[in-house]
């Protein structure tokens, strides 16, 4: 079997002056053409993980305390700054949540895309602009010749996100990192942009790491899913396995609290409390303080248990139906 495109092992991130890691022991692999969705709520460390892979963490106060990330023969965690700059926008494309603040407001969009091509491919300006125009056409911007001269503020939110995608994909990256790419968009526009990302990804055979809080987006896009809670991957597996055979109480709780499920009149199931802060991270399982299945054993960190091929979970009590009756019923 071929080596994966990206192999992340034991990635840990810490804020200076704290004792515990904010992101702890994150490991996953990604093959060419695959989409991994990292799902979790605010503060679970999903964005930090992506930023670390791109070498974009603010260091200090953040610092990588361990781990490797093998990507095309290099370790992203140990590459010098200049080498990372060469990778970003070329072999690794990035799409962020808020296109208005990620695009340069004073630069015409055609020039912004062309700049990325020129910087990495060393082609002439004319050629780079040709590529930019071609990309605008591919992402479905109407009248792309005219739009080359538009500024970001001339475009709607959906169109700006298309420009971001055009820029991220202009150099045919092997890996796309997308952090909540559709969260700021209206529902009908979100559907359009997700469709577009899927089509373009299939055309270019790029792998994608998509960070989202929305299980609906996950179901739509993912081949693999990593569920993160308080800095740790609590469950990882093929998308179908996560939805059809969810193991971790947090995964199940997330699914249960979605209003899309359940009869309309049912009360929504909640996860009481909030995600623990870095300084007050519990010693064992980090979900324990909010978990209704918690027992004494949960004060120790649960090992990752393999459920099926590629599907593993970090919970002492999975699968839940094996729990004795009196632990669950009222």
């Amino acid at each position, binding site marked *: 079997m071929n080596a994966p495109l990206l192999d992340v092992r034991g990635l840990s991130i810490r804020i200076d002056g704290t004792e515990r890691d904010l992101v702890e022991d994150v490991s996953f692999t990604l093959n060419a053409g695959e989409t991994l969705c990292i799902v979790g709520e605010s503060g679970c460390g999903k964005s930090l993980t992506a930023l670390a892979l791109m070498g974009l963490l603010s260091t200090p106060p953040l610092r990588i305390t361990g781990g490797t990330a093998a990507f095309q023969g290099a370790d992203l965690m140990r590459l010098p700054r200049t080498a990372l700059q060469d990778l970003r926008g070329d072999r690794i494309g990035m799409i962020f949540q808020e296109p208005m603040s990620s695009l340069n407001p004073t630069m015409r969009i055609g020039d912004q895309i062309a700049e990325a091509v020129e910087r990495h491919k060393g082609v002439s300006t004319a050629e780079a602009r040709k590529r930019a125009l071609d990309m605008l056409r591919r992402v479905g911007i109407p009248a792309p010749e005219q739009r080359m001269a538009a500024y970001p503020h001339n475009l709607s939110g959906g*169109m700006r996100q298309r420009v971001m995608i055009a820029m991220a994909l202009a150099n045919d990256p092997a890996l796309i990192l997308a952090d909540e790419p559709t969260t700021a968009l209206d529902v009908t526009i979100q559907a359009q942009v997700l469709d577009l990302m899927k089509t373009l990804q299939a055309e270019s055979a790029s792998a994608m790491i998509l960070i989202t809080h929305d299980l609906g987006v996950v179901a739509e896009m993912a081949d693999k899913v990593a569920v993160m809670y308080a800095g740790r991957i609590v469950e990882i597996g093929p998308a179908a396995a996560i939805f059809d055979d969810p193991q971790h109480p947090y995964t*199940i709780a997330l699914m249960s609290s979605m209003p899309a499920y359940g009869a309309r009149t049912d009360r929504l199931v909640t996860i009481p*409390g909030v995600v623990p802060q870095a300084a007050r991270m519990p010693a064992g399982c980090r979900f324990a303080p909010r978990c209704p299945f918690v027992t004494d054993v949960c004060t120790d960190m649960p090992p990752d248990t393999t459920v099926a091929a590629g599907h593993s979970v970090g919970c002492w009590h999975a699968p839940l139906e094996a729990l004795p009756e009196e632990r669950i019923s009222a």
Partner: protein
Amino acid sequence: MTVPETILEASALRREFVTKRPLFGAPTLVRAVDGVDLKIHRGETFSIVGESGCGKSTLARLLVRLIEPTEGAVRYAGRNIADIPEAEMRRLRRDLQFIFQDPFSSLNPRMTVGALLEEPMQVHGLGSGTKRKAQVAKLLARVGLPSDSADRYPHEFSGGQRQRIGIARALASGPKVLIGDEPVSALDVSIQAQVLNILEDLKAEFGLTLIVIAHDLAVVRHMSDRVAVMYLGEIVETAAVETLFSAPQHPYTAALIAAILVPKVGVRRAHTALQGDPPNPIDLPSGCRFHPRCPHATEICRTTRPVLSPRSGGGAVACHHADTLHLKGLENAEAGLSAKAAARMELYRAARARADGGGAAATTPQ
């Protein structure tokens, strides 16, 4: 069937904003709300849905006169609130309260939570000092915040907790109608569920009428009794929530429903997404405003503006072809759930209820 009592009614409501006022010539106008008629029944949850720029937030503000209408009337308990003098309007505001979307920018960071909750009581001259303090404690408990919250400042709270503070503040004056502009859209899913449950409890406890502005149709389906769908300043369809989701009659409603991402792998049809962006509200399309994006548009849609007319099955729809189109409603997400997943979600629900020791505590954070 008894006729439900109307508590709030908008008729031919219009609001224009000036976007550009040149030195010479006519100013550029945006018709944010353009001829809206609706009746809100006492005790119901009425949701207004639509995409950015459709005028739903403007409509919400008009309904409680946070802004003045250009034309038309809003009747609360039979009186046109646009004609009520300011002093009397202030008394009326006790009844009509607003919950804002962003719990970070809608609470004064320099006031303690206690002061924030007391302020509406002071403004409306409710209770004395000690009574107010007691009322603050009661409100905090009611929205599931610890009792020592009164002496703390908004920045010490998480987003979900701040939204509870916003709700408690809206409740402080003892309102009859609560209007929420995207009250849960800034929150994480699990926190969103907590806040939705609180709103439902409060509505039942105080007999509130709830008007909710939202863009998330899953949330709307969960909490509403009736729904109005807005597009470019107009209401294009209203119906009871089940009717609207099972048998939408306006193509735009159907498009919104089709765009719901069902949390089940491989469910969504490929590429039936609505094409294009909503047009610029300054330069509105002729005829039906939805026609440039509508897959069913014909000649009449380009020339004649459809009016909101009674639809079969109850409610109203503004579409020339409503009777002949057979649009697809929402497929049941539950049906897509595997037996294993459904069983484990049930285990979680049971364990949660047990850990919380009954219904009321389910909304209390640690």
